[in-house]
């Protein structure tokens, strides 16, 4: 990795093999398959809702990237402090959030995760460990460092997690945050979902190298670069880095190479606006489907079959449909919400 290129990891013709399930727990993997399906079907539902103009605001979909959040979350607890960004449906759902409350939020309903005040780009579920997501690129990265520092000051072994993309690494505050986390030994895991694109721009047009882990190396932070469409690989790498952070070893950096099937925003593939993004490439990456690959691995181990998968899919589809129907009929926030959450302390009105 001396030249910081991904090699086979970013070649869509490679890494199509079934996930290696050797030594893994069958029940855990089946749960992960179910969670990845839940996330995918939820995002497909959001894509359709956006296409049909039932959703008013933008949705940034991560279909194709489900294994990253699910693999990392397998090593997290509800007392950890996870921060997301603009493409965070998978991050919040992987922490165990309610589908109904996610949908309600995207629809701007009072019952939503952020009480209808955030929409898709500002998700909050702190009771489940999800501290928040925002669409300012890299905006939450230093927040995760601070929440991790707080865990240390509070004498717990909880960790912070900052999900960011390869584009966020081009922001200055990420470099400040890496250095600060290292110097304060903050127990934070930086998770770069490197899907090779920032909005429409391919990474080759933005950075001299593909691997953003070079900045971890520059800051003396332990790192791993993995196939982000292999949930077991993501989990195994997360396990080491998170264990190190929990035992006062300081920050870690996980780079998961993946690809989003939809465009930057909403339901289209955006091959028309993507620079260096082609229909052929999208089709090739679909063959690296993290869900299909986990299923193939489970199937070859005799741990899952077509009937079971179909049953799981049916159940997830039902769950999504019920949650969506419920969310669409929920009420909007009261007009008083326009100003009632600006400050928390009371006493300003005379």
């Amino acid at each position, binding site marked *: 990795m001396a030249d910081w290129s991904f090699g086979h990891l970013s070649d869509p013709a490679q890494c199509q093999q079934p996930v290696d399930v050797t030594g893994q727990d069958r029940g855990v993997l089946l749960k992960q398959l179910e969670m990845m399906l839940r996330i995918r079907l939820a995002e497909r539902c959001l894509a359709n809702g956006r296409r049909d103009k039932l959703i008013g605001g933008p949705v940034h979909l991560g279909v194709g990237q489900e294994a990253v959040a699910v693999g990392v979350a397998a090593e997290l607890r509800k007392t950890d*402090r996870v*921060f997301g960004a603009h493409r965070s449906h998978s991050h919040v759902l992987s922490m165990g959030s309610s589908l109904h409350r996610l949908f309600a939020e995207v629809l701007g309903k009072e019952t*939503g995760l*952020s*009480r*209808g*005040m*955030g929409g898709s780009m*500002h998700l*909050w579920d*702190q009771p489940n460990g999800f*501290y*928040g997501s*925002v669409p*300012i690129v890299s*905006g*939450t*990265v*230093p*927040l*995760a*460092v*601070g*929440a*991790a*520092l*707080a*865990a240390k*000051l*509070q004498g717990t072994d909880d960790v*912070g997690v900052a999900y960011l993309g390869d584009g966020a690494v081009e922001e*200055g*505050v990420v470099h*400040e*945050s890496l*250095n*600060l986390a290292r*110097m*304060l030994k*903050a127990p934070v895991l930086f998770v770069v979902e490197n899907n090779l694109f920032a909005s429409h721009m391919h990474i080759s047009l933005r950075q001299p190298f593909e691997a953003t882990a070079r900045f971890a190396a520059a800051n003396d932070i332990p790192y791993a670069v993995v196939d982000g469409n292999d949930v077991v690989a993501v989990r195994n790498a997360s396990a080491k880095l998170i264990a190190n952070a929990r035992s006062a070893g300081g920050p870690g950096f996980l780079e998961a190479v993946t690809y989003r099937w939809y465009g930057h925003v909403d339901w289209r593939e955006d091959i028309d606006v993507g620079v260096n993004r082609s229909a052929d490439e999208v089709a090739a990456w679909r063959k690296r489907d993290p869900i299909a690959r986990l299923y193939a691995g489970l199937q070859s181990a005799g741990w899952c079959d077509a009937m079971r998968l179909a049953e799981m899919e049916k159940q997830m589809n039902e769950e999504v449909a019920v949650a969506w129907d419920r969310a669409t009929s929920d009420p909007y*926030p009261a007009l008083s*919400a326009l100003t*009632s*959450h*600006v*400050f*928390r*302390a*009371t*006493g*300003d009105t*005379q």
Partner: protein
Amino acid sequence: MSTVRYNYGTALLAAFEYLLEKYPEVFIIGQGLWSPWYVGNSMTDLDKKFGAHRVIDTPVSESACTGAAVGAALAGMKPVVVHPRMDFMLYAMDAIVNQAAKWSHMVGGQAAPGLTIRSIINRGGEQGAQHSQALHAWFAHVPGLRVVMPATVADARDLLIASVLCPDPVLFIDDRWLYDLEDDLPPVVELSLSSQRPQRLMQGDDLTIVASGYSTRLGLDAAGELLKQGISAEVIDLRVLNPFHPDVIIESVSKTGRLLVVDGSWGPCGMAGEVIASAVERIPVGVLKKSPARVTLPFAPAPTARVLEQAYYPTVDSIVVCAKKMMD
């Protein structure tokens, strides 16, 4: 009641000591905290007394440090992030304006980062355009961010404590030109920041002078000078600029009929304009005896050369001249 002699700097120090002593969730992060010549006498030996893990001197990273304080606040701490000069704090605008100020609103009031951003106005001494700015009005424009500017020794101590204990993000702006101001203070009584209002520091009948921070001192000195000349000025100190509660000002101007606002920053789109607008909007036509006036900086960055610098900042004389014109 027994009192203790403080100056503005040691009053700030006393507030930090009180907070670190009493609240384990308070910690301080920022540049220059282990060698606090940046911050006058306001943080001396805090690291030695309370430990370097709670008084954290940092890399030169305003943006990440402020963002980290926001994140720590969301995780239940009461952090104070220190920017020894406001000019450098501009690197942290995203953490302050996009993240801290909007968080509560964006998540429906379910969480808020209760951090305090302490920013110091540190100007003069031929330091020029980037070591001088007083940008309180920018921040008072942002919903969700409380902005506090203490002008008295008591407020330096008590509003700092109130800011740190407030569950909302607070920008606390103190001024190096005030550090030698002295007063005797009683023991600390914790105040609720959200119930603090502008304060009348001097009674008068002819004219209302409104100011904040160091400008309040100028206003008080000018009022003293005016009194010698037979003009009775009422002086109101804003204290909290956001949210801005103009009631005390309206009441005073309704009585005096004249409003003069002093602000050690620029005029256009500034705090002085906001104060005047609040009065003009609320006071019935015909009550004002004169058009309101403001004394602010020339609309230019701070100069370096001594002669230019002397002409740049408002003075007691410039306020007196303006006030006397209003009495014609």
